[in-house]
C-alpha cells in the first residue's frame, strides 16, 4: 500500500489499468501526497498537450503536394513491365531462380559435357552378328514359350469366361 505508483499513473490517466492495479493506485493516491501531486501534474500536462494551438497550414501546401503526387504518377509508367514483377514476391523469386539457373546451369552443363568421359557408342551391328551366330542351332520359338503361354492363360487375374 505504501509503495509508490508513479509507474502506473500514466496508464491510470488513460483508464488503461486492470482492475487490480486500478484499486491499488486509487487506494495509494488517497494517502500519498507525492503521487497525488505527480498525478495532477500529468493531468495538467495532458490538458496542455490537448490544448496546443492548431499549427497554421503553410500556404500552397495542398498545391505543392498535388504537384509532387502528379510527378510521381507521371513517373510510375516509366518503371515499365518489370514493376509488375517487382510488386509480386512469388514472381520475383521465380524470376530470380530462372535467371540463376540460366547463368549457372548452362555453363555447368557445357563444362560437364566437355570434361566427363563419354561412353563408347553401342555397336549394334556387332551385337546382331554375334546373336545370329549363337542362335543358329536354336530356333526362335524355344521350349519356354508354350510353358509361358499355358501358365499365362491360367492366371487367376484373367479368368476365361
Amino acid at each position, binding site marked *: 500500500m505504501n509503495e509508490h505508483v508513479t509507474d502506473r499513473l500514466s496508464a491510470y490517466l488513460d483508464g*488503461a489499468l486492470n482492475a487490480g492495479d486500478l484499486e491499488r493506485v486509487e487506494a495509494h493516491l488517497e494517502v500519498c501526497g507525492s503521487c497525488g501531486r505527480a498525478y*495532477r501534474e500529468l493531468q495538467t500536462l495532458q490538458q*496542455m498537450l490537448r490544448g*496546443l494551438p492548431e499549427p497554421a497550414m503553410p500556404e500552397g501546401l495542398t498545391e505543392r503536394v498535388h504537384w509532387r*503526387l502528379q510527378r510521381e504518377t507521371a513517373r510510375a509508367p516509366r518503371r515499365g513491365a518489370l514493376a509488375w514483377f517487382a510488386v509480386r514476391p512469388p514472381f520475383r523469386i521465380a524470376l530470380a531462380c530462372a535467371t540463376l539457373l540460366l547463368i549457372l546451369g548452362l555453363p555447368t552443363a557445357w563444362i560437364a559435357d566437355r570434361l566427363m568421359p563419354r561412353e563408347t557408342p553401342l555397336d549394334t551391328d556387332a551385337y546382331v552378328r554375334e546373336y545370329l551366330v549363337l542362335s543358329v542351332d536354336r530356333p526362335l520359338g524355344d521350349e519356354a514359350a508354350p510353358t509361358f503361354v499355358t501358365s499365362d492363360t491360367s492366371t487367376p487375374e484373367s479368368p476365361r469366361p
Partner: protein
Amino acid sequence: MGDAVFALDGLAGRTGVTFGSADRSGTHRLAAFEELLHRHLRSIHRVAYRLAGNADDAEDLVQEALVEAFRAFDRYQPGTYFDRWVYRIMTRTHIDRVRRRGRRPETSLDAPVGPSGDALVTLIGDTRDDPQQLTEVADLDGPIQAALDRLPEEFKTAVVLADVEGLSYDEIAAAVGCPVGTVRSRLHRGREMLRHALRPHLVRRSRE
C-alpha cells in the same frame, strides 16, 4: 484553389472510396488518394508539425510521407482510417529523416551566420539544450514543443499520437508497429520526461 485541385473527376464529396484495381492507376488513383487526403491533410500536417518541431521540417515530412503513402496506396484498405495509415508511414519516415540528419549535420537556413560565413548555430535544436530556454519562451506552445523535441523520437511519437491526436493504445501500436505494452511504457516514460521538463509551467497552471 486547393479545393479545386482535389475536386478531380467528380470524386470529391463522396463519403466512401470504392475503386477497382483497374482504376488504381494514373489519374483515378491520384484522384482517389487526394480525395482522402483532402479530408485528412489537416490532422496529418498537425502530427507532422509536432513530430518535426517547426514549419519547414513539417512540410518536408508531410511531402515525403505522402509520396511514400502514394507509392504504397495499393496496400491501403478502403474503409479503414486513412490518417492512421499515413501516420504509420510518416512516423517511420520521420525517424529515417532524424537518423539521416544525425549522420550528416544540417545547417539551418535561418541560423545566424558568422563573419567567415560559417553558421554560428549549426544543428537545429542545439540551442534548446539549455533548460533556461524553456522558461524564457513567452508563448506556452514554445516550451511544450521544445520539451517534445528533446524527447527520444519513439517517446515523442507515442505522446503526440496519444495526447495531441487522441489515439488509443491499440491505434498507436498499429501506427508505430510495436506491442501495446511498449506503447504504454513509451507513454509513461515520455510523459515523465515532459513532466519534469515543464514542471514550472505545470505548477503555475495547476494554481490558476
